[in-house]
């Protein structure tokens, strides 16, 4: 399994703990499906915990962007938690770091939702 996604609920916020690789194919597809599933169920506050993501490629970065756009267009909020150095570096290189609301602490991220 290239990626493992686990959902948990913290109040009205769904936290997705992501572990493994978000790359073209299984990893990107799994993330896309998970976000679409939550949106289809009316869940609009989503926190992606990327602390255990070992690898991400341009497809994975694109999936984060698409997910952010999808959730935002549905009136929701997608935030990122616990970026590894690798993911943070790639988001900075691609000028996407400031697009996302990024947090290092889950409690801070939870409080940041409206």
């Amino acid at each position, binding site marked *: 399994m290239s990626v493992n996604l686990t959902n948990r609920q913290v109040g009205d916020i769904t936290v997705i703990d992501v572990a493994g690789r978000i790359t073209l194919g299984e990893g990107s597809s799994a993330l896309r499906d998970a976000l679409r599933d939550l949106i289809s169920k009316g869940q609009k506050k989503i926190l992606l915990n990327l602390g255990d993501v070992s690898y991400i490629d341009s497809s994975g970065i694109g999936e984060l962007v698409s997910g952010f*756009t999808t959730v935002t267009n549905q009136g929701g909020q997608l935030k990122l938690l616990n970026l590894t150095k690798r993911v943070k570096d790639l988001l900075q290189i*691609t000028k996407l770091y400031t*697009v996302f609301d990024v947090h290092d602490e889950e409690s801070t991220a939870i409080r940041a939702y409206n």
Partner: protein
Amino acid sequence: MGPDTNGDVCTVEQVLDSTLESVDSAELLVIDLARTAGFGEDDLMGIGLAVRECLVNAVKHGNGFSPMKKVRFRVLQSPCRFRVTIGDEGAGFKLEDVPDPLAPENLMRGSGRGLFLIRAFMDEFSVRGLEPHGTEVTLVKVLGNGRPT
């Protein structure tokens, strides 16, 4: 096999299927070779990602995952240079037609960052058309140039 005109010796020459499994295995092989050549962890991450992006372009955009089309993959090394060439059998592309992913109008696109990342992590990047069809991309990383990645 002797050195080519650049003084690089070919250490790997493979013909790959146009699959993501090929991408995974070739990326791992490149990282192993680059580690043995003396590159540090940051460079290894960058080389691996650049090669992955290039291979994905070849198998997906070039060959369309066709079982009839192959990717030619070579690694050439000298004491100070690490060169990877990746050739596909696709219709080809022009670099000037590839949108800048950092442009404001492209920033939120869900794709189109692969070539940008390749250029960000490698020291040299070139593209040439193959006859009768196809594209060959060459990636070079120089050992010990100290450029932060």
